[in-house]
């Protein structure tokens, strides 16, 4: 935190609204981080919670995660605008990165009585920006946890030179308006519907920053599949 303050002092001449906002967002993100880990601890310390308590706890957790994701989006947007959102490609073990996001949201999923499964070859490695892709998966996963009934399935495999990460749920599916412009969510950011659109907008932007030779990453939305819910697909070259 102190570093961030120093940063502002150092460039006082460039102090503008968006910098102040970014700095505040950064601060809020720290607080929400503390809040979320304290909450995790608190939940563990409550012996045999009642159904009602469970409900409340998962609501608090879900909303906290949403705020955290929103703040991350704001920061990303700030960087995207200032052109300081670079992609750091490196080789990662796909299963490990996805597993981490499932673990990250484990308590939330359990509280809602959801089963999250992962299908991915343990040996599959791919080049991508792990932090960025984790952010996308986390965002989509939290959203899916909110809207599914019993099951969420994450699947990753190599297909035609792309890494394809699919996240399918058994919820009500994406609204028709979103499906029609899939992969180009920029036009569908509708602030009245909450952060979902914004999250997908960033997912598309970040996917597109993944470039290999002449191919770009992209996202696709569908409904249906084995679980008969929403399906989010991320393709990385």
């Amino acid at each position, binding site marked *: 935190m102190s570093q961030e303050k120093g940063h502002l002092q150092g460039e006082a001449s460039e102090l503008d609204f968006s910098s102040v906002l970014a700095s505040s967002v950064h601060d809020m993100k720290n607080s929400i981080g503390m809040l979320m880990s304290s909450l995790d601890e608190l939940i563990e310390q409550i012996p045999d919670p009642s159904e009602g308590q469970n409900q409340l706890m998962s609501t608090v957790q879900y909303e906290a995660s949403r705020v955290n994701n929103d703040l991350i989006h704001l920061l990303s947007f700030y960087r995207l605008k200032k052109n300081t959102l670079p992609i750091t490609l490196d080789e990662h*073990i796909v299963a490990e990165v996805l597993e981490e996001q499932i673990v990250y949201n484990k308590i939330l999923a359990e509280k809602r009585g959801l089963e999250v499964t992962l299908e991915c070859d343990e040996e599959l490695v791919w080049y991508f920006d792990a932090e960025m892709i984790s952010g996308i998966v986390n965002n989509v996963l939290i959203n899916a946890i909110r809207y599914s009934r019993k099951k969420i399935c994450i699947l990753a495999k190599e297909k035609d030179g792309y890494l394809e990460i699919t996240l399918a749920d058994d919820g009500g599916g994406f609204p028709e308006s979103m499906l029609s412009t899939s992969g180009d969510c920029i036009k569908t950011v509708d602030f009245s519907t909450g952060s979902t659109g914004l999250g997908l907008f960033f997912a598309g932007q970040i996917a597109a920053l993944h470039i290999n030779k002449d191919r770009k990453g992209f996202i696709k939305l569908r409904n249906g599949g084995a679980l008969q819910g929403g399906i989010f697909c991320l393709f990385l070259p």
Partner: protein
Amino acid sequence: MAIIYRDKSALIIDDFGEFRSGVRKMLEYYGMKDIQTAGTADDGVAKAKKRAFDIYICDYNLGDGKDGQQILEELRHFKIVKHTSVFIMVTAENTQGMVLGALEYQPDCYLTKPLTKAVLKTRLDRMFNLKEAIWDVNNAIDEEDYEEAIKYCDENIADKSKYMGFCIKTKAHLLYQTNNFTASRDLYDMLLEGRKVDWAVLGKAKSLFSLEDYDGAVKLFKGLVKENEMNLVAFDWLSRCYEMKGEPTEAQKTLELAIKKSPKAIKRQIKLGELAKKNNDLDTATKAFRKSVRLGEHSVYRSSENELNLAKSLMEKAATDSTLAGKKAGKEALETLEATEKKYRRDEKVQMETRLIAARVFVSLERESAAEKQLKEAKELKEKFVGDLEQSVIVNMAQAYRSLDDLDEAASLLNEVSHSDADDELKADIEALVNDPEIMERQAELNEHNQKGVELYQSKETDKAIDCFLLASEQSPTSAAINLNLAQALIKRMQRDGKTASDFEKCMVCLKHLESLEEENKRYKRYQEISKIASSLG
């Protein structure tokens, strides 16, 4: 593979008490008992130096003082953290990792706050699985047996395990580290054929730099900074390329761009100061050195060099700027020097250097007696000094005496200096002194051959005198005194034995050296007389 944590040890470094106890609880939950924590960077480093840990969890933002990266640098630099252990850097936001990602010293992974018990565990599992799979490689690196480490990398690569990519990366890095630049370049090239990855581009560019293909390196570094303007390491290298290509102004400009983005990096500030000094941009140099002093306080790079560099550039400013700004610079220089003397009380070399700089500042401020006092103290220290004195200190001393017009001392000190292992900057300083006409004269007067020649000439042994003057002129070919003496002696011989082509030619060479002599010079009259006689001989 299930990792057993019961017997593992950990060190947690974070300025946040709640974070420390939070992480400690998580580790205890995994079964760990041997856990230590540190609330400041210094405490963390001290604890790390005492004993080895299996796990280091270090926050990047540690408030004032050192940051996590500086801790990592220090611990890796002194080989305190083993490559077989796990070092996790915790950052407040996920983009910090990207900014830091190109630095030389890397943690095993970056984790973004908030940390949860389950996430930390999966990440640690991941790291230990990797560490165990390639234990041979890391152990060989820890033992500094890089050939062996490369061999183990090759074995892992041949096995085509999921850690193959990691081993190729490590191998390329090791090849570069062991100066196998052609091999590292080729390996990076091979990687880049498959996919353009920043670290491979960086590795290739660094290899090209070491192979002295500066144009090729510039192209790659430029591409890296264009794609990611926070890739400061690429800026640093780009600047080095320009320097090697003999474009110091461009080098400075490039470094200034990087500093604007990250003003906290001390090494870069020092480098900028040095470059700006070379480019005669004293204001930039002063600013950079001033920052390096402030940043150095908490860093491994804390060194009297920073203070002395600052004082020197302020001194130069005072010497070359007669306005109020120059006076102010002089004042700041003296304050800096006073603080430095106190701070490094026991370091005799520092004590000498501060006095030498102070003497020259006092000369600029027209306080000669204060200058003389400083110089006298420095001289006393020099006589007491045990061990070899660096060339640069002797040159500084000669410069100080020169600024006080004490030519004897300056000239005799210059006799102690050799050009052999001087760097470019020192060489330039020596050249400036050696070519100083007044010092040159005094050196001639101190020249033994010249003195002996004068004695022989006076006792009418002209032939022997000429031999002495010839030896003297070999040592100081441009000295007015020696050239005049030699010319005069040659004329004497020609008057005695008659003109010879060889003597006459030598005489003309001497006079040619004196052509630029100005009328005010005390030797001008003598020069005129001698050249008159010489032309009458012709």
